[in-house]
């Protein structure tokens, strides 16, 4: 893997066992063979609809879910088979910010205790005074005040709670932050505040983000590169500019056309997809999107598409681009998306 890659994920599968009918074993194929790299200092956005496996992927990278198979390399270290004990020092490098700011903070802990906990666990403060100073500095960093440290989560609004969640993640000075829908529970005006804070912190602390969201406009705003997920796979991965100006996969095109634009004078040709996302227990054969795809061909129903390099930094999994076969990268083991 390249020097500049902080995270390297290869052929990652995360399947959950659910009991099927008649005691048969069935698996929810939440993440179904995903490979990608995240470069140091970039924001990699992951978008998709509910049930596409984006949160499972995020939790899988943090090893909060156990991968069924595949490789996760963080900073050159293969962490895919680490148990929770060996993961502990790794968590200094990788932290997570969660979606629901109401559920992710312990209501019985003061803000001081919430933010100091990771510092104590990882022995990052030399004494009590040092600990206090560090917590106060973190609070300031996320735009909160000293006196907030004594308060409890219920005294804060959603936006402030999300700031506390970010401060907690920053406490161990991580390199990589996985943010799983960090702004989707917030009001519009507060959402902008938190997004600005995250962008600001990323620049100041040279952080790397994996930013998971369902809102395409939010992902476009914050990301450098974006991966679009559908039923456990990426369908398109690209630099932000290319993905949003020239979406290649029919799913990406439909998603982008479905986003309501806050401008009543713009009238667009909307691609309305039929039906809803199929079950991840029995995903359709071939290309998983073929059941809803407006451009479905015969081959799509049986053969899973390969990854094609359409342009520098622009990759797509779709049979429409089979004429790019000579550039197919799927089996070369050199896939660098």
């Amino acid at each position: 893997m390249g020097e500049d890659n902080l995270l390297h994920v290869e052929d990652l599968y995360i399947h959950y066992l659910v009991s099927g009918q008649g005691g048969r074993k069935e698996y929810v194929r939440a993440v179904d063979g995903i490979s990608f790299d995240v470069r140091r200092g970039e924001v990699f956005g992951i978008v998709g609809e509910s049930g596409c496996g984006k949160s499972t992927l995020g939790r899988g990278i943090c090893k909060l879910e156990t991968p069924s198979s595949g490789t996760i390399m963080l900073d050159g270290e293969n962490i895919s088979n680490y148990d929770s004990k060996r993961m502990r020092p790794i968590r200094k490098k990788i932290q997570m910010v969660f979606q629901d700011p109401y559920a992710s903070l312990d209501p019985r802990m003061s803000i001081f205790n919430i933010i100091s906990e990771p510092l104590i666990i990882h022995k990052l403060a030399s004494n009590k005074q040092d600990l206090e100073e560090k917590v106060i500095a973190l609070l300031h960093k996320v735009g909160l005040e000293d006196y907030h440290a004594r308060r409890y989560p219920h005294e804060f609004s959603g936006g402030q709670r999300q700031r506390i969640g970010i401060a907690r993640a920053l406490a161990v000075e991580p390199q990589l932050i996985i943010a799983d829908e960090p702004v989707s529970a917030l009001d519009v005006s507060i959402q902008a505040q938190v997004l600005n804070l995250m962008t600001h912190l990323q620049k100041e602390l040279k952080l790397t983000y994996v930013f998971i969201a369902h809102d395409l406009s939010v992902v476009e705003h914050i990301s450098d590169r974006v991966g679009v997920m559908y039923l456990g796979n990426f369908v398109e991965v690209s630099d932000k500019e290319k993905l949003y100006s020239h979406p290649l996969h029919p799913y990406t095109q439909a998603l982008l056309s479905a986003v309501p634009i806050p401008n009543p004078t713009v009238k667009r040709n909307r691609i309305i997809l039929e039906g809803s996302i199929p079950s991840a227990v029995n995903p359709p054969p071939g290309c998983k999107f073929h059941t809803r795809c407006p451009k479905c061909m015969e081959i799509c129903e049986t053969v899973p598409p390969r990854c094609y390099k359409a342009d520098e930094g622009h990759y797509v999994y779709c049979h429409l681009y089979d004429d790019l076969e000579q550039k197919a990268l799927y089996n070369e083991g050199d896939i660098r998306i």
Partner: protein
Amino acid sequence: MEKRGHTILEVRNLRTHFMLDEGEVRSVDGVDIDLKEGSTLGFVGESGSGKSVTALSIMGLLMGTRGKITEGTIRLDGKDIVHISEEEKRKLRGGKISMIFQEPMTSLNPVMSIGKQVEECILQHEKITHKEAWEKAEHMLRMTGVPRVEHMMHEYPFQLSGGQRQRVMIAMALSCKPRILIADEPTTALDVTIQAQILDLMNTLKKETGTSILFITHDLGVVAEICDDVVVLYCGRVVEKADVCTLFAHPAHPYTQGLLASVPQLGVHVAELDSIPGNVPDPRHLPKGCKFAPRCKKAFALCFEEEPGFFDLEDGHASRCWLCEKKTSGPANNQPHVAVLVAQSDAGRQGENKNGRR
């Protein structure tokens, strides 16, 4: 605006207050609505702005809460619907006015089959047989485009996806051909592709049935997509109203301007989003003067002292902001003494602000 038909729902100076142990919460404090026949009115605001309470007040669904309409009138087709008996209200609900809610899972009965639920609603309002009602329910579901209707009639809500449940809600709401449909964040819990389907469906059904829609949402993109007119709420007050094109092109109230600027837009690249500082104030301790003043970048002394009136700007466009006072021919509720007072004591600062506005 007048060409779009007459006003079917008229709400004047609506005040709905909740008597809580901690004190009185004025969730809705002076809301005016004019819903024109066959049009869609967007009702925009953040959480706590009073949009859902307004909807519940119109529906007469405040019983069982500690809320009470303390002032104001709600007229449907010119007829008062606040001071009528519970029985009459029951006839209105689902008949002339119906409502769809944000979370379709919690608003459908989990232990009743889909067919029975839609049928029940029809039987409430029409004197027809079970068989006819069942057939009508089937027809309504088919109209909303759910797959396998015959099977679904016998299925239960948990067996349906979010989008399908919302379609069932719409089928139920439209089954008695209501004059008004109140949609409270109907697409917020849905994915974008499903949201596109539902918005498309609502637009089609509106054209077919001529139903007027009061569309409650916080998503400005959705507003631009399906609304004709828009009302912006903040802390239980209407801060701006306009037709949709005017609102997006020339927002007059700083809150509306802030909202529009804080939404990331597809294809528009900015290093930093324009955010509104601070939080929505606690409804029990609202600030004096303009409720938005503490978060407003353009606020000046008067804003913290006196609440602005609702100033008319031009045809159908009005804004509750002191900055709009100058542009207007005459404020809706004129308070000349204040204006004079300000002109004397605060002339300098006001001038500053006027310049800063451009």
